[in-house]
């Protein structure tokens, strides 16, 4: 008979997870090592500037760039908040749109064939070329920036959700049918959770690009004050340390948002790294009942 159906059966994970790992080791591996790579990056930067005698107006030393940020923190903080707001709003709208589109396209194959080319086209348009007309249409507000971020974020989400939904185990869907499950319950209880991993892959890709979208929007809509304009001013004043410092800030916003999404994934998909479920309120209630 078909051995092909045995998929992964009886085989353990290649690297068994220990139920109890020393917390200190876990922190060292998950936080310490990534931090070390950041420090190494700064060291390489410092090394290049020192060894090749790079002039400060070409590239500052890391310390100067960091000081340029900390010494102007009171000016920069509101601008950072503005960029964060554009990023977060755009991301949430883009993620919601991406998820809905992915679901609708997976459920209505005709729509998928109709809409998919348009979606690819939307991403083939250089986003910078799109920014100027968007500002013309939507004006000098937060809106065009949010739209650009959403424009960038929705695509990887849609593609991943679509992919995830079309790879749900057919036998599992049949089992639900045998039980007599209505389609909407099968969708909520099986298809959506089965798509969690690809959904978060899409969200993580979106999160890394979201800040770029916000900055492009800020550049195109050169209104008032923004992180992008602050950098432009620093550049025209040959304040290279501030240019680098602002870039670091933008990057930090991007990394923070990415880490938040990763955190959400860790929280929302406990089965990926735990062997035993967290205690839930329901569990506690059942124990009281018993």
């Amino acid at each position: 008979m078909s051995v092909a159906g045995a998929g992964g059966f009886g085989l353990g994970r290649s690297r068994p997870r220990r139920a109890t790992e020393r917390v200190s080791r876990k922190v060292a591996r998950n936080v310490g090592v990534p931090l070390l790579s950041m420090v190494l990056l700064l060291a390489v930067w410092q090394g290049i500037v020192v060894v090749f005698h790079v002039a400060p107006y070409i590239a500052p030393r890391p310390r100067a760039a960091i000081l340029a940020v900390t010494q102007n923190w009171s000016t920069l903080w509101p601008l950072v908040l503005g960029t964060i707001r554009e990023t977060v709003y755009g991301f949430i709208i883009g993620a919601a749109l991406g998820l809905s589109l992915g679901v609708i396209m997976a459920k209505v194959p005709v729509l998928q064939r109709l809409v998919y080319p348009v979606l690819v086209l939307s991403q083939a348009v250089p986003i910078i070329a799109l920014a100027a007309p968007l500002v013309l249409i939507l004006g000098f507000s937060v809106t065009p920036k949010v739209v650009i971020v959403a424009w960038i974020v929705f695509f990887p989400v849609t593609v991943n959700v679509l992919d995830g939904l079309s790879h749900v185990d057919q036998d599992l869907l049949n089992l639900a049918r045998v039980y007599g499950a209505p389609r909407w319950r099968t969708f909520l209880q099986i298809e959506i959770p089965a798509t969690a991993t690809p959904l978060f892959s899409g969200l993580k890709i979106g999160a890394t690009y979201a800040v770029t979208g916000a900055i492009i929007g800020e550049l195109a809509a050169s209104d008032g004050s923004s992180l992008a304009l602050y950098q432009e001013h620093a550049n025209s004043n040959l304040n290279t340390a501030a240019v680098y410092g602002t870039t670091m800030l933008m990057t930090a916003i991007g990394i923070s948002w990415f880490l938040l999404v990763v955190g959400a994934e860790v929280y929302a998909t406990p089965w990926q790294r735990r062997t035993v479920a967290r205690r839930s309120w329901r569990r506690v209630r059942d124990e009281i009942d018993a």
Partner: protein
Amino acid sequence: MSPALLELRDVSKVFGDTVALAPTTLSIEDGSFVAIVGPSGCGKSTMFNVIAGLLAPDGGEVRLRDQPVTGATGHVGYMLQKDLLVPWRTVEDNITMAKRLTGRVTGSDRAEARRVARAYGLGEFLRHYPSALSGGMRQRVAFMRTLVTHQSLLLLDEPFGALDAQTRLEMQQWLLQVWKDTERTVLFITHDVDESIFLSDRVLVMSPRPGRVVADFTNTLARPRTVETLTEPAFVEMKGRIMHLLHGGAS
């Protein structure tokens, strides 16, 4: 005549030019354990899918407790070689999955899941995710999930097909114990002749092209069955006859 739980009347299924299941008439007694053995393409799984309502037959009728259920779903427990546990649910929540898919999971559903799991050796693992379990344990959970649907008729399609020989023997004895305790009717597909005799009251032998039942053996070996059963003369004799049908006739 004892009451029939399940009846097939001239049930047939064709895929393109292939007769997956020639018109088949069968009667399955309430509370019995019927094994179905046959090579690939003999229509075993097609027959199951028709009984479960996943496939509409091209002809004939399926009746459960004398009610027509042809093409309908929601009237059998069903289990495959793949355990089909969902990785995002704990053992307890996987056991109650059918209820979650058809309505609300109540406290008493969860209490039942815990009771069943404790009774059959998985009490320690209720809050574990399936990824933490061995293949044999996963199949037990899958079987418990099938059990708590409270269907009288359980269709088991090679449930132990992917397990190693040792685990498989343990699981067979475990299954017989649970079957005895819970008084269900089991239809059990396998391609392992030993397994089909060891477990059943009755063995249906199927053959391909066209898929059909070619023999119907009544198995009167004494219960409870143990490892010794596998070497009893009656067991060996029956195995010889089935093997002849499966392999002798084909050559």
